[in-house]
């Protein structure tokens, strides 16, 4: 199979675009998709300071790599959750990438260690508050990434969510008719109230397979093994189902998610309505000051319960 663009030997075929690419043309394709996403969704400009949420996985490291190579000012934050046998490996991958790739671009890595800051690892914390580990992890990461971005005056926080993440989440929301969450499925969430950082997902046009291929071809050393806490999750099941459909009918995932985004845009100016809704619902947490719908935010409630249970 030859490259659709330059006719040399291809290294990856993309059935959803009826195309195949060699390494340089594939790298160009990935960069163009990200550039389109940033421009089309008005994510950030060339002078904005970006905080990338990194995990050591292919998506977040690929995102950091792409942003740096495109000349953006992108630092990163890693949250060390203290998962036995996993966090040490993923942290080492992030630190290695920071030293070898990010540092020469003048970018820095920050690390938040849950064990040191919250006094216990993720497993112990989730046991103490009787919540699933993935839910506890989500609360801590959302809180710490937002806090770091706001306190250090980053213009925007970027995450490595890809097309598969967004399509599977949309499928989950629709299957359970959680329509109140649908307007949060945009690749861009505005800094709607004081204390909320603007959040963007520059990889929403690229599939997991494409991002894994980008990482392999650009020699990004990422953690291949799955987080042991994620085994049996519903999202993995939704992704599996969508990938079966995609294999039978290429383009299913992007038609599903991008089609949703188009309809959302036609239905209402999402950013405005979301900001208005947030402003009506949110106010500062009495403990930490971050925006919340209740008196105390879910992070502070969780930590208070964990301290009481000890």
């Amino acid at each position, binding site marked *: 199979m030859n490259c659709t663009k330059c006719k040399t030997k291809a290294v990856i075929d993309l059935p959803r675009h009826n195309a195949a690419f060699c390494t340089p043309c594939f790298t160009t394709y990935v960069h163009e998709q990200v550039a389109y996403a940033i421009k089309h969704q008005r994510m950030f400009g060339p002078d904005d300071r970006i905080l990338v*949420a990194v995990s050591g996985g292919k998506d*977040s490291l690929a995102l950091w790599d792409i942003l740096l190579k495109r000349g953006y000012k992108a630092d990163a934050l890693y949250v060390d959750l203290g998962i036995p046998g996993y966090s040490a490996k993923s942290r080492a991958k992030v630190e290695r990438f920071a030293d070898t790739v990010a540092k020469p671009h003048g970018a820095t890595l920050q690390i938040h260690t849950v064990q040191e800051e919250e006094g216990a690892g993720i497993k112990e914390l989730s046991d103490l508050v009787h919540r699933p580990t993935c839910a506890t992890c989500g609360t801590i*990461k959302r809180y710490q990434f937002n806090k770091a971005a706001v306190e250090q005056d980053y213009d925007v926080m970027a*995450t490595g969510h890809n097309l598969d993440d967004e399509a599977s989440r949309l499928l989950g929301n629709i299957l359970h008719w959680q329509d109140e969450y649908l307007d949060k499925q945009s690749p861009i969430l505005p800094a709607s109230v004081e204390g909320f950082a603007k959040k963007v997902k520059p990889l929403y046009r690229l599939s997991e397979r494409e991002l*894994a291929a980008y990482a*392999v071809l650009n020699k990004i050393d990422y953690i291949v093994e799955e*987080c042991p806490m994620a085994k049996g999750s519903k*999202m993995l099941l939704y992704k599996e189902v969508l990938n079966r459909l995609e294999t039978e009918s290429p383009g299913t995932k992007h038609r599903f998610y991008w089609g949703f985004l188009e309809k959302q845009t036609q239905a209402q100016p999402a950013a405005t309505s979301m900001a208005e809704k947030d402003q009506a619902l949110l106010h500062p947490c009495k403990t930490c000051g971050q925006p919340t719908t209740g008196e105390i935010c879910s992070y502070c409630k969780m930590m208070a319960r964990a301290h009481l249970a000890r």
Partner: protein
Amino acid sequence: MKVLLSHPERSVDIKGPKRAKEVLRELNLVQEAHLVIRGDELITEDELLKDDDLVEIRPVISGGSQRLTLHGSRFTS
């Protein structure tokens, strides 16, 4: 050929020559969720794999449970 698989890590022997897509089919694996790597080179699905090739089939899917909250779900990949 020796084929390395993940989740859990293991290796299987498959008789060549076979095209990459036939190897995936034989292992009941979906193309969209995997990369096929020969040695350290990524290859397309029509590539012919021989008995002396060392092949890695790498899964590409990641992600934990999605807790749907007010300001989005999970923020890292």
